[in-house]
């Protein structure tokens, strides 16, 4: 059921008129959520995503996608993090200050992978947003109507409606 619901939500996201900006923001923020391995940072990003009207489905898709990407590019993230934390000595006082603040050390920002993934996520926020928005606009302009005619989509709609009726009767 959950898989079907998710599938429907994804289809709705593509086929409906939901604002491309919301979807783009969701995707960009979801990418950071997926990349950063620290639980506390994930919680903070989740709250931000929930707090603002960004598309949750696109955020979820990006989170899943970039979690897998994150595993694959851990060595790269480690290098980026190391450069940021160690090589840019001008930032050391900032890190020292952050390190001695309450709660902040729990974000494990001093870990190379955490810092690397967060930096990469931030760097990718704009490209991800632009990419998501453009891709969606392009899809809606060229493929939305055609996809709407697919038997699979109709079948999925029917199946979900039938499930709802069965639930109500049951």
């Amino acid at each position, binding site marked *: 059921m959950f898989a079907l619901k998710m599938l429907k939500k994804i289809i709705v996201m593509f086929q409906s008129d939901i604002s491309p900006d919301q979807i783009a923001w969701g995707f960009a923020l979801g990418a950071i959520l997926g990349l950063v391995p620290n639980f506390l940072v994930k919680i903070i990003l989740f709250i931000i995503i929930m707090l603002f009207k960004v598309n949750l489905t696109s955020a979820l898709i990006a989170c899943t996608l970039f979690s897998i990407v994150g595993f694959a590019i851990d060595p790269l993230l480690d290098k980026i993090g190391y450069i940021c934390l160690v090589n840019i000595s001008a930032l050391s006082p900032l890190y020292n200050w952050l390190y001695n603040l309450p709660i902040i*050390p729990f974000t494990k920002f001093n*870990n190379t992978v955490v810092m690397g993934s967060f930096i990469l996520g931030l760097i990718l926020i704009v490209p991800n947003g632009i990419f998501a928005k453009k891709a969606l606009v392009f899809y809606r302009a060229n493929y939305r109507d055609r996809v709407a005619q697919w038997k699979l989509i109709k079948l999925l709609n029917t199946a979900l409606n039938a499930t709802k009726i069965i639930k109500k009767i049951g």
Partner: protein
Amino acid sequence: MKFIRWNFLVPTVAVITLITIFNILFFDIILKKTLISSGEMIFGAKVEINNLSTSFTKVSVSIDGLKCADRNDYFRNLIDIDHIKFDAKFTPILKKKLVIDEMTVSGLKWGTQRKTSGQLPPKKEKKFNKKEKKDSKISKLFDSAKNKATAEFNKLPSVNAFSEIESQIKDFDVNKLIDKSNLQSVKEIENLSKDLENKYKNYQTTFENFKIEEKIQKTKVLIDDISKTKVTSFADISKTAKKIEELKDNKKELNNILKELDKAKKDISSNLNFSSQIQDIINKDVNNISSKLAIPSLDSRNISNMLLGQQWVNRVDKIIYYMSLIKQYMPEKTDKVKEQAKKREKGRDIIFAQRTYPTLLISEINISGTTVKDKQTSGLDFSGIIKNISSSPDMVSQPITLDIRGKNGTQNLAIEGLFDHRGTTSDDLLKISMAGASGQSLNIPENDYLPLINTANMKLSSRFELINGEFSCGADILIKDIKEKDLANIKGNMKYLAEITNTIKSFNVEANAKMDESNSLDFNVKSDIDKKMSDAISKLFSSKVNEAKAKIKEELNKIVKEQAKQAEDSLKSQKDELLKNINSQTNLIDDIKKSIKY
């Protein structure tokens, strides 16, 4: 604000607000209950807190009226603190760590009386026992050692010795001690009487054997013959000369008999006085009877062990319990390294300058309080500092130090401690010295066999050491200015004991204990009270024994005189008769001697 998702924000804020309100209202109660139950699990007795308040803005805790009952005496408080206040650092709390720079403990008292029992309810007691079984190797080790020592002290014969003394004094009766049938002097009178009787008989027999009358008669005949003889011929001369010779021999014999009679007379005529004759034997009898009043011998270490041994064991028990608690909550460093699970490429942690904290760190505790008040002392105000209490001493790189001092006129108190658990070994040292303290703090219950220790002044210097599981301790105690018991209020035989104990004005105690991990125990208590008690007992007893000896002698003389008089009376007639006989025989011999002219 159209980009805000209100349907998420509003419930979230509502939930957070509710949690905050709940914490503000109930956090103090929850913390109080947690502290009480943790304390009860540590000390194994009831812990009470009058009031606890926290401040989230200052991250401070204030505790009023903390009372922790003593597991060894449920109607006493081990610790009684009026007020505790500390500010904790906020950041470490988020890491489940408690870091306190300065803590203030005021109105610290110990040994205060409780109105209610401090025993834990059965359920909690069971839980504590289960926990205690698991914990503290040293405590367990000491338990068996303590039981052994207690058994040893209880076996000491001092109590019997005291009871013997008491019963001796109680049962003292001269007449009971004198057993006539066993008196040597009486036997001697009987023997002397028999000897004298035999002697008289012997003299009588001897005199009879002399055949004095026969000899006198023979002499008379000879004298008569010689006087009637008329010398007519040469043969008559020789015949007469022969008779004269015979007469001379008779005279000689009679002279000898006379000498014997005279000697016998002298021998017999001396006064019959048995009692003066057997004076030495009477003295021997007196000594024999007096020996039954001998002072029971006291083992030199008996008294101090009996009086102070158990107290020493209990004191050491308490100290070792607290030392093992410190060891338990401040463990030495272990060589074990926790294995870290890697779920994902972990990266590298870049460490910036930051102080890391142990789970618990109290940098400084300022303590002030009062020692136990008793009848004699008004309690001593003290203050001091405990530094570097920490659950991981290696992180602090400083040992715990303890320095508490108090002075009030002649009274003073000093407690110094060093608990070093850095590295993989531990070294704990606690020194306690007191002067001008009340003897009451020794907790020796008053009894008839002891001087009034509770009224005395005490000077104490003790040292407790626990190095890598090997425990050793020693204490020197001087008890002085002991007041005398009021003899007017003591009745009966206990007066004697009071007289003994009143002679002791001061005494020293030296107590030691040593125990290693192999559970070999060496408890040792020495005191000059043993000698002082023994001397006092001897002194008192010797005067009592001398009194008794005089009574015994008087009584014996009376008995012996009576016995002698009876014997003398029965012998007197025999003696008189014998003397009369000697006199008459002597007179006869004297008369016949006068008739002999040759």
